[in-house]
């Protein structure tokens, strides 16, 4: 594919992502009905408008897990000798960056929703707590990526760290949900966590949101990998130039005869 047609495709992908996210926002804010009616939250018969956050919260949570999954897969592909190529490491890094951003967004949206519904910003809900641990798990991974060394060293270090972190996800999820179910007696946890998605417009908006965020992810990760590859290529060219320079410098120097 030529560079030009690739950039056309990219722009198209970006436009689709923007349109889809915009459509999700419009649907979530103006089209779907409030849960149990507009004043439902005040009357105590539903969540009212607060639940509209769900249409961003669920897709961003989905995206965070997708991104970390892609990081693990790309790390595996780098570790496997037959598919070892540096672009897998770049993909792993780019995907983890997006994963951390969207994990942070998930946490923020979850807290915003928790305040009116649970009456507090943070209620140690199992899924939110797991997400918080994931946030720090991958923050450490990103810190490890920035410590320097050659690209191969970075790839080896971070691919193993990514798999270690990924193996921890089910264990964290399992232990946290087990831990929180022990505390179900607290009134907070009996709060209306269930939202009845009956309206077809709700279902459609949720699906649209997930699709929109997935396209957005694809677009962002693509651009990020390209940028990283350009940086990497630049560093590579500088290195080649440095090698040539050293060879030239050594060649130009007068050599004394060496004998013993």
């Amino acid at each position, binding site marked *: 594919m030529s560079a030009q047609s690739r950039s056309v495709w990219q722009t198209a992908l970006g436009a689709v992502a923007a349109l889809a996210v915009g459509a999700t926002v419009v649907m979530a804010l103006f089209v779907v009905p409030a849960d149990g009616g507009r004043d439902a939250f005040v009357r105590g018969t539903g969540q009212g408008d607060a639940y509209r956050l769900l249409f961003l919260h669920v897709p961003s949570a989905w995206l965070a897990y997708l991104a970390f999954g892609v990081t693990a897969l790309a790390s595996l592909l780098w570790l496997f000798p037959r598919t070892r190529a540096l672009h897998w490491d770049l993909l792993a890094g780019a995907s983890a960056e997006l994963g951390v951003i969207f994990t942070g967004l998930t946490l923020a949206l979850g807290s915003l929703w928790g305040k009116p519904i649970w009456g507090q910003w943070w209620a140690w809900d199992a899924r939110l707590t797991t997400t918080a641990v994931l946030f720090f798990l991958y923050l450490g991974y990103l810190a490890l990526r920035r*410590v320097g060394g050659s690209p191969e060293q970075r790839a080896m270090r971070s691919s193993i*760290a990514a798999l270690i972190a990924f193996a921890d996800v089910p*264990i964290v999820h399992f232990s946290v949900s087990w831990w929180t179910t022990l505390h179900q007696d607290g009134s907070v946890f009996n709060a209306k966590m269930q939202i009845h998605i009956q309206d077809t417009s709700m279902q459609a908006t949720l699906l649209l949101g997930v699709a929109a965020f997935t396209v957005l992810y694809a677009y962002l990760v693509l651009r990020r990998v390209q940028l990283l590859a350009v940086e990497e290529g630049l560093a590579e060219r500088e290195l080649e130039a440095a090698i040539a320079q050293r060879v030239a410098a050594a060649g130009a120097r007068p050599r004394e005869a060496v004998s013993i």
Partner: protein
Amino acid sequence: MTILSDALAVAGKDLRIEARSRVTLGQILPFGVLVLLLFAFALDPQSRLLPNVAPGLFWIAVLLAAVLAVSRSFAVESEHGARDALRLSGIDGASVFLGKAGAIVLELLALEVVLLIGTFGLYNVNVRGLEVLIPTAVAATCGIAATGTVYGILAAGLRVRETLVPLLVLPVTAPVLLGATRAFDDALTGSTGDAWPWVQLLVVFAAVYVTAGIVAFESLLEEA
């Protein structure tokens, strides 16, 4: 089995260094006890709070001390280029992992005995249910030491080792903190039956990361 006997040689070397330098005994152990003391200052010792939260405080103290023990274990290897010497010896990465992690397990278990006596004395906790406490402590410690050793070699030789190791180790070991705390809580309150699922979780965690260490350590020792 050369892997195991080499691992024993590495563990023996690390323990001998600790026995002679007394860093674990003279610094890490007092640090652990100090953390217990600080918790008592932060939480009113007069209330009934301390005995109730003692298991969690105990395991946080262990985790913080473990981070120091891991840092220490790899500081020893980077001091006079010992890591290169270890690589040049041709010793298997799995042996180095098992040896270093094994030494950390023994150090932490000794520390836990002291901390348990500390919680008994300082927090007024009745220590009982040893048949649960001991397997919990062993499984949890193996898990902590295995993850710590893998991340220790990842960060070894980096300028930011001391700050990076806690950021890497503590989130991964979150399930260990949860599981070991619950199991200790169940044991100390007499409901030992509830503790076993948590012990199983700890065993799974330890098995996953010991395996990961055995498989990955060679590459990390060489390339990272």
